[in-house]
């Protein structure tokens, strides 16, 4: 896990994100397309500190440091595919 991967996905493991759907994100690895799996590392992170905002942004995820609000497995995978495609262009 320590080897540097191209994409680092950090999943917020705080209470709010967890109950707002973050629990499902822990299974992200199962949904990654095979081509991406080698390039992505998945980590847990303590609360991002977005909890006090009164907008609906949970669950939160960071991809290479950029936050992705209202994350879902679908959204993360799509985002990763876009990033990867742009890179290949």
């Amino acid at each position: 896990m320590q080897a540097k991967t191209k994409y680092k996905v950090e999943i917020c493991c705080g209470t709010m994100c967890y109950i707002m759907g973050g629990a499902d994100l822990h299974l992200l690895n199962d949904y990654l397309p095979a081509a991406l799996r080698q390039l992505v590392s998945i980590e847990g992170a303590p609360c991002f500190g977005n909890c006090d905002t009164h907008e609906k942004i949970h669950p939160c995820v960071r991809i290479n440091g950029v936050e992705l609000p209202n994350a879902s497995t679908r959204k993360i995978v799509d985002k990763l595919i876009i990033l990867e495609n742009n890179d290949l262009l």
Partner: protein
Amino acid sequence: MHNRHFYIEAELCQEHKAMQNVCGDACESRKLKEEDRLITVLSDGLGSGVKANILATMTTSMALQFTAKNDPLERTSEFIMKALPVDSKRQISYSTFSILDINCFGDASLVEFDNPPVLIYRRGRFVIPDQSVKTISRSDGMDAKVLYSKVELKKEDRIIMVSDGITQSGMGNIHTPFGWGIDGLKTFIQQNIQSNPNISARQLARKIMQRAKTNDKGSFTDDASCQVIYCREPRKLVLASGPPYYKNCDKELAERIDSFQGKKIICGGTTSKIISRELKRDIAIELNNYKPDLPPVAEMSGIDLITEGILTLGKVSAILENISNNTVKGTGPAEQMVRMFLDSDSILILAGTQINNAHQDPNLPVELEIRRNVIKKIASILEEKFFKTIEIEYL
């Protein structure tokens, strides 16, 4: 009130005579919290089976009540002997008893009647306290000799109370024609403590029991009970949950946890972040639990367990409420925490009182109880059901 420098661990191991369904021995302990006092009574009823069990249970509960109310010991013993029903076959009313009463200073008083002697182990040998004998006349005309003694307990002392099922085990064998005997038991205890100086009360009680059973070739010929009391250094644990109300207490919280002697749990994302910031240590979260029913545990050097806050606490409280003995299965964050609680004697809870605004959002799909309430509930279960010493400090 709390003048004692050790914690008292009391564990009982009991088995009934082969072919009987109930044990004719009774042993009961009671902690009087306000007085910081522990009373243990062991009684062996005449015969075996239900009848013996009733005699023994009556004896223990009377002895406990009277002792707790500080009735003079003579009165207690006399009353017990007079109150027991008379056995129709043998025309006597009879059950043995040993009463041990330890006060908040660690002074123990012992009352013994017809049980194998209570053993007090101290640093390799057995202490023999000064005994005084009182004769009590019984309704059947026979005199009963009751022994009284007092001991000042020291840290690392062990007290072993057994019924004669233990000392008489193995009777009739070639090597032990008269049974294992009190001397055999003493040697066994010495050997075991010498080879494992930190042996817990429960382990020692179980070992004695197993050995006695082996003496009896695997099935007891009499009811057997073994109560072990161990005065030892308390196993301490600290649980920090919730951010302090005032920001300037963050540092203090972190330092107290860091310098605490014992096991350490941090419960709550924000709390662990505060401590990580103050102690300048990283938090790592492993995401390898694939059926997560709770957010995963995190790791930080120097801390034994880091979990999420309110959801985990809720589950911990539910587990504690439902378990009936000291064993928990499962490896989830809540189970790990429960196990650590059960393995400790005194638990300090540092409860931060800052309310998490996010949790008070009415749009949340689940209702989150206020952390303080859950903590209070956990504390009271640990105290009342598991006899732990609990201290809660609000920050």
